[in-house]
């Protein structure tokens, strides 16, 4: 685990994670949120953008008796990951604000995802 000094230095580095698959179809969503949390724990600045079917992850709002990447998404938000999702993709799937986890920014690829990528040191896409 990084020291406080290392974390402060790591904060200057930006990782953007793009998730394009919904939960339970594969473990892409699990890997995306776990990677985001791990990077955040080391102090890095982390963006997580849910795109295409990836927006379904934001729909997992409630507790479950089994693996729940939605819970880890909420942790991401609480831990300071910048979480956002594509507005057009959300509209297409009838995911309105009341349907999604609190704290996810519903926004455009044109504005937010391009800005996230442009300011990143690394980009990784989870689409398996």
């Amino acid at each position, binding site marked *: 685990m990084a020291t406080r000094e290392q974390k402060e230095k790591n904060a200057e580095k930006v990782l953007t994670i793009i998730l*394009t698959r919904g939960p339970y179809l594969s473990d892409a969503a699990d890997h995306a949120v776990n990677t985001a949390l791990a990077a955040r724990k080391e102090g890095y600045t982390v963006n997580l953008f849910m795109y295409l079917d990836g927006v379904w992850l934001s729909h997992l709002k409630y507790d479950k008796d089994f693996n729940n990447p939605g819970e880890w998404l909420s942790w991401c938000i609480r831990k300071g990951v910048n979480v956002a999702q594509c507005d057009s993709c959300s509209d297409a799937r009838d995911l309105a604000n009341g349907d999604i986890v609190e704290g996810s920014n519903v926004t455009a690829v044109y504005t937010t995802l391009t800005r996230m990528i442009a*300011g990143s040191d690394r980009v990784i896409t989870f689409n398996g």
Partner: protein
Amino acid sequence: MLDGKDLLICLSRGTYGRFDDARGALILASSYQSRAGNVTVLLRGDGVYMALGSQEPNDIGLESLISLAEPVLEMGGRIVAVGEDLTARGLSKDDILEWIDILPEDEAAGLLVENDLTATF
């Protein structure tokens, strides 16, 4: 205009099928090219089907991806297809859109090094 880095977008899934990755890749490509920096879209594997000049998905109720790809070019971006992947699918230069470049596999791999960032679809 953001002072963005050069972005390589790799597309390896086919068009108009189970996933809408091709559409998502092209929307990101045109958005990034217009706001942030230079984009190269690399079509490899089944992604080369995006290059087909004869695609006409309107009959099945879908918007043609060509209308999403053209703006990328118009704004200065680039779309390339891996030659070996075209050949493997029985496709040649005559089958694809004239503004899509064909690169051999080794040169396509070089794009991964030349660009600052990569997003895969």
